[in-house]
Each structure stands twice: as C-alpha cells, then as structure tokens.
C-alpha cells in the first residue's frame, strides 16, 4: 500500500478534538433549520421521529465514521488515503474524489452565508439596523412594514435582486474578511489553529446564546411562543414527509457524510478512544440544537410576528424574521448583535473545519507545504466563490450547489461509509475494533441496528429525499417550464429564464469540477504508487 507524505499535524488534547468535530457540526442548521423544521412538521410531535432518527441513524453513522477514520489513519489523513485502507481501483478514486470535494465546495458558498451573519452582527452592533425607523410602534401594519424593511435590507445586502448586485453591497467586504479569518486559522495548523480556536469559540458561543436565551425567556407572553415550537400535532406523525424531514435534519445537523470526522479521527492511534469521543461531539451538537435552537428562534419570532413566523424558510427566518424581531425588541441592537455573533461563530467554526481536509489532501497527495497548500486552496475557493456571489439572483447558484453538493453528495458519501463498515469491515469486527482503547463500549443493541436497520434506513431516506426534491431542481433547468411557472405566479419571466440558464451552467460546471477532482485524486494516488515502486 502506498504511503503518502503523512501530515505531521495532529491534535493536542482529546477535548480539543471533540470540540473541533462538534464545532464542524454546530452551524446555522442548529439555530435556524431545526426550529423551522420542527414548527412546520408537527411541533413537539416532530421530536419523536427526530429522536428515533438520532438513535438509529445519527449515533451509528458518527461512531462508524470515527472507527473507520482511526483505522484508515494508518495509510493517511485525507479521504483518498484513508479509503485506501478499505478500497482500491475505481471505487477508491470515486470515494476519495467525493471525500475531498464535498468540504471544499461547501466552503465556497458557506463562507458567503457566514459573511451575512458577520454583516448583521456589525450593523446591529453599530446601530445601523434601523428597520423600524419612522414607524410608530403599534400603528396599523407596523409589524408588516418592519418585516418588509427587513426583507428589502436582506435582498440589498446579499444582492439577490439582479445579477452582480452583491458586488455593489457591503457584503463583499465582509466576505473578504471571512476568507482572511478562515485562512489565518487554517494556516496555523490543526492544534494551534482550529483546536485552539474551537476551545474558545464553542464556550463563547454557548455563553452568548445563553444570554440571548435568558432575555427571550423573560419576555412577556413567551409561553405562547414556546407553544408554537413545542405544542404537538400528533396527526402529523402519519405523514411520511415529517419522518423524512426528521431523518434529514439529524443527518445534516450532525454533518455526517461531510467526511470531516473521518479525516479528524485519522490522527488517533489504536489506543485512543473513539466511541466516547464521537458520542460526546454528537451530544454537544444535539445540546445546542434542542436546548438553544429549539428555545430561541421560533418562540421569539412567534411572539412578535404571530403565526406567520413558522412560514419563513431557513434564510427567511434567520435574516428577515429575526432581525425584524430584534428591531422591535427593547435593547434589540445589543441582543441582535449578540445573536448574529453567535451565528457567525457557529458558521466560522464550521467553515474552518471544511478547509482542513483539502489542505491535508494537498499536503499529503502532492507533498506541498502548509503555506503552499493554504495559498492554493485560498485562490481556488476564492475563484469559485465569485460566481456564487455574482449569480446570486434569488440564491440560484447557491441553492443549486447546496442541493447537488451539500445534499446529494453527502448522502452518497455517508452511504459509502456505512456500506464499507457493514459489508467490508463487518459489524462485529468493526465494533470490536472500535471498543479497543475506548472509554465506553458501543452498546450491544447497535450490533443489531448497524446490521439490519441503519444501512437500509439511510438508503430509503436517500431515495425518498431524491424523489421529493430532485424533480424540482431538474424543472428549474427547463426554460419553458420556468417561464410558465413565473407567469402563473406573476413573477418576472425574464428573471425566470436567466435563473434557468444559471441553473444549467452551474450543473455543467459542477460536473466539470467532479471530473477535475477525480483527475486530481487519481494523480495523487498514482504519484504515491510510483514512489512505492521505486
């Protein structure tokens, strides 16, 4: 087996590694996506499929990812070399390609969203967020006007009204700042960069969110807001879409399939713990999601905006509904700044973790120094981020990339990982291996769950998810259909045609990128094979 120029980087402490993996998982999904999904899918009743999915999908996939990472670490620390411990030939190249590509391409659009959070934190902190200026509190249509102002502000900031609009907005400066911070942290290495940062950022994020939570729970009438989030609608449990949404939420929230835990745990030795560590990082993620995300977003939005609060999507909730709420709330500038700082930290910790697998791949695969690998990745991601910003007309480029890379590809990688564990390593030997050196043992019931439930559940959820969403994205590329839908909705036909063309170009470009990464991964594997044979 070929041995790459294994990175000398690593983790200083076990806590640092757990926090680093958890920081990758804790992101906007915890604070914005989870409460929105719960409120739209039966409120408190949503927690039943959610907890079941956590137990039969979330925990097993997390534990297996860590076990495979620790074993694969003998042959390298980036996806193609980790997978070399289990696969060979074309399957190895395909898995390696997906593993390297996912975090890099998600970073490309995630850093832009991170810049929105930083912008909002800055504008709230400097008192420039005047969404209710000139409006008399309690006057007719007051709430609606504030929400309208928040919507216009958001569209203007992110440039979703016309092509290239974002380049005329302040968001471009904040995007640059985010790029700089991310690459500064990456350049410092795993233990001095990401690990040191996660040790400060996670506690800081928790403290700031608890302050915001404290303020929200002391608002008059918050009980009604909590009801919008937690009152159960038991009839929703008969709807398969609710179960699918719960499984999807667990899957995306834990960042399973990003390949990040796989890479990070590859630095562990056989005597190091994987079971308790993987469980701890998954638990920290759930703690943030349920006890912070579930208690803040929907309750406060409902209190100020009424039943309409549950109809916003993830972006609408985060960047239109909540800014409106903070603008109407006493001391809203302070709490708004604090809240968006929490979101920025959550996004930043995730984006930094997304860069590490790419850096490690360039270091290991091509023998580049950290400086050269970081610079190359900086230029590559920056170059790719520009079209995402330019073609942000109604989020078209961002949404398409998120669907094909951030949804489709991560399902495929998670499925590959779980199938390798179940069919290649074997559940019983795999669990025995995981228990070695671990401070708690994998519960015996997971032998059964991993053999007979998780792989099939994952595949069913994947197929159902694709059936539900893929046609919608394919329709977006059909110019005639897009124009027809726009006419029906009374929207601009010209914009619909432009968006349809953008969607096609994005797909073609993504296919080209898949080919490019496949070639790159092949080159790196061949390079080490050649070095071995000399």
């Amino acid at each position, binding site marked *: 087996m070929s041995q790459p120029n294994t990175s000398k980087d690593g983790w200083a402490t076990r806590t640092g590694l757990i926090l680093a993996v958890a920081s990758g998982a804790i992101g906007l999904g915890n604070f914005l996506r989870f409460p929105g999904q719960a409120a739209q899918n039966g409120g*408190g009743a949503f927690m039943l499929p959610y907890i079941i999915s956590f137990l039969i999908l979330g925990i097993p996939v997390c534990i297996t990812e860590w076990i495979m990472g620790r074993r694969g670490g003998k042959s390298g620390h980036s996806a193609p070399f980790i997978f070399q411990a289990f696969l060979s030939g074309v399957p190895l190249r395909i898995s390696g390609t997906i593993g390297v590509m996912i975090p890099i391409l998600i970073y490309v659009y995630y850093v832009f969203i991170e810049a929105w959070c930083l912008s909002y934190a800055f504008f709230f902190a400097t008192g420039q967020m005047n969404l209710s200026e000139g409006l008399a509190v309690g006057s007719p249509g007051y709430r609606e006007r504030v929400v309208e102002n928040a919507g216009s502000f958001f569209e203007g900031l992110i440039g979703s009204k016309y092509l290239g609009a974002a380049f005329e907005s302040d968001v471009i400066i904040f995007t640059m700042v985010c790029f700089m911070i991310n690459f500064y942290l990456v350049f410092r290495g795993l233990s001095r960069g990401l690990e040191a940062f996660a040790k400060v950022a996670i506690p800081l994020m928790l403290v700031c969110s608890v302050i915001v939570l404290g303020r929200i729970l002391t608002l008059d009438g918050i009980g009604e807001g909590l009801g919008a989030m937690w009152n159960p609608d038991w009839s929703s449990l008969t709807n398969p879409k609710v179960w699918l949404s719960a499984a999807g939420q667990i899957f995306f929230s834990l960042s399973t399939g990003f390949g990040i835990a796989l890479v990070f745990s590859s630095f562990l030795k056989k005597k190091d713990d994987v079971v308790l560590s993987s469980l701890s990082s998954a638990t920290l993620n759930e703690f943030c999601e349920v006890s912070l995300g579930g208690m803040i977003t929907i309750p406060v939005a409902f209190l100020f905006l009424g039943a309409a609060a549950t109809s916003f999507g993830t972006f609408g909730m985060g960047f239109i509904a909540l800014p409106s709420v903070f603008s109407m709330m006493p001391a809203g500038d302070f709490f708004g700044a604090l809240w968006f700082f929490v979101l920025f930290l959550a996004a930043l910790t995730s984006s930094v973790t997304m860069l590490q697998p790419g850096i490690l791949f360039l270091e290991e695969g091509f023998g580049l120094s950290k400086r050269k690998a970081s610079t190359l990745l900086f230029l590559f991601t920056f170059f790719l981020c520009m079209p995402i910003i330019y073609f942000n007309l109604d989020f078209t480029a961002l949404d398409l990339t998120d669907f094909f890379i951030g949804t489709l590809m991560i399902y495929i990688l998670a499925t590959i990982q779980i199938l390798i564990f179940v069919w290649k390593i074997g559940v019983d030997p795999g669990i025995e291996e995981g228990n070695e050196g671990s*401070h708690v043992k994998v519960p015996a019931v997971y032998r059964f769950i991993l053999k007979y439930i998780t792989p099939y559940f994952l595949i069913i959820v994947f197929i159902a998810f694709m059936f539900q969403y893929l046609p919608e994205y394919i329709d977006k590329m059909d110019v005639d259909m897009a124009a027809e839908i726009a006419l029906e909705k009374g929207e601009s036909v010209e914009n619909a045609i432009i968006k349809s063309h953008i969607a096609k170009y994005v797909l073609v470009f993504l296919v080209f990128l898949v080919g490019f990464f496949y070639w790159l991964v092949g080159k790196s594997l061949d390079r080490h094979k050649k070095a071995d044979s000399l």
Partner: protein
Amino acid sequence: MNYQGWIIMILSLSLVFSLSVYCLYHLIRTK
C-alpha cells in the same frame, strides 16, 4: 403552551442534558 408541549419540551431537554452529563462524567473520569 399546553401541558403536552411542556411535557415534550421537558423530556427533550432532559434527554440532551442526560446525554451531556453522561459524556461529561466519562470524559472527566477518564481524563
């Protein structure tokens, strides 16, 4: 919020708190 909402909220929070305490206990014990 109705009483079912309260029960679900408390049960959900208890679950994540219990898991957190379990992990913290073992992390400290095996430090």
